[in-house]
């Protein structure tokens, strides 16, 4: 009895599964939705490669509201040491880049303690603090 009952239900299950697959395929095709996992993966990898840290300095480092407030009072083009005394060690460093002729720009990342989705990017050129920006994912 059990076998007789199981066999048709299995067939029906396969039929339904097939129908589901066909319907989703039809929907993907007619609605012109992208179905290309490899390209999505490539895109994600390329994003990571452009924004990835080259060196993790202090995995638990975050920046508090008061540290940020103190940093904003430091004028741009002042000494790197002044800024580093306030922000302490960064979470990580982005790759160094040469944008301006004759200068190497170093970038350090400080995630905000009160908004972990946002990081403060601090730029240095040699011993000079050049400026800051906010980076969102």
């Amino acid at each position, binding site marked *: 009895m059990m076998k007789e009952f199981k066999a048709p239900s299995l067939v029906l299950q396969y039929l*339904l599964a097939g129908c589901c697959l066909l319907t989703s395929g039809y*929907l993907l095709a007619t*609605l012109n939705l992208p179905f290309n996992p490899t390209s999505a993966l490539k895109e994600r990898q*390329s994003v990571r490669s*452009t924004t990835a840290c080259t060196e993790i300095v202090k995995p638990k480092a975050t920046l508090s509201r008061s540290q940020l407030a103190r940093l904003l009072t430091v004028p*741009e*083009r002042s000494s790197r040491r002044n800024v580093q005394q306030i922000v302490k060690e960064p979470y990580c460093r982005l790759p160094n880049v040469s944008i*301006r*002729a004759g200068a190497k720009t170093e970038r350090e990342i400080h995630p905000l303690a009160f908004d972990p989705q946002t990081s403060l990017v601090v730029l240095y050129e040699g011993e000079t603090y050049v*400026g800051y920006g906010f980076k969102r994912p």
Partner: protein
Amino acid sequence: MWDMVLNVLKDERAIAFSIVLLTAFGCTPASMTESPRDIQLSQKWELQPGDVVAGRQVLGGLGDISLALNGDAIYAPFDGRVQPYKPNCVIFSSEEMPVYLFRLCGLNQQHFGFRRAGQALGTGDELRLALLTKQPDGRWAIVEPSKKIIEKMLQPS
């Protein structure tokens, strides 16, 4: 048994409906309109690209590097944003490189909005590129771009 089939069909209809809703409201690409970028230059040169002198448009000025693109593309050096700036010029900015801006004039086909590193910013025959750096007073000064960054922008990554 038919109940099950009907339920599955109902589910399918719900899925199809959600997909249609998502496509209509959730997955539409962001608006391609970009607000123009306004910049205060610290250098007080009389003529800037986009200005008009005796009825002729100024195409490039002091601090611009002219590049023979010959119809090819120039690429984003970082993830960033392209905004219109004066006639025939755009500004490229990046959160990863907050104190620098690129002013690009002479692009024929411009792509406004968010661009990923390595994506084309536009194509042109003769590109005039200027690098601007932020001054402590909030204005922008034209500085000399490095050969490395220009090389990076001329090659897709």
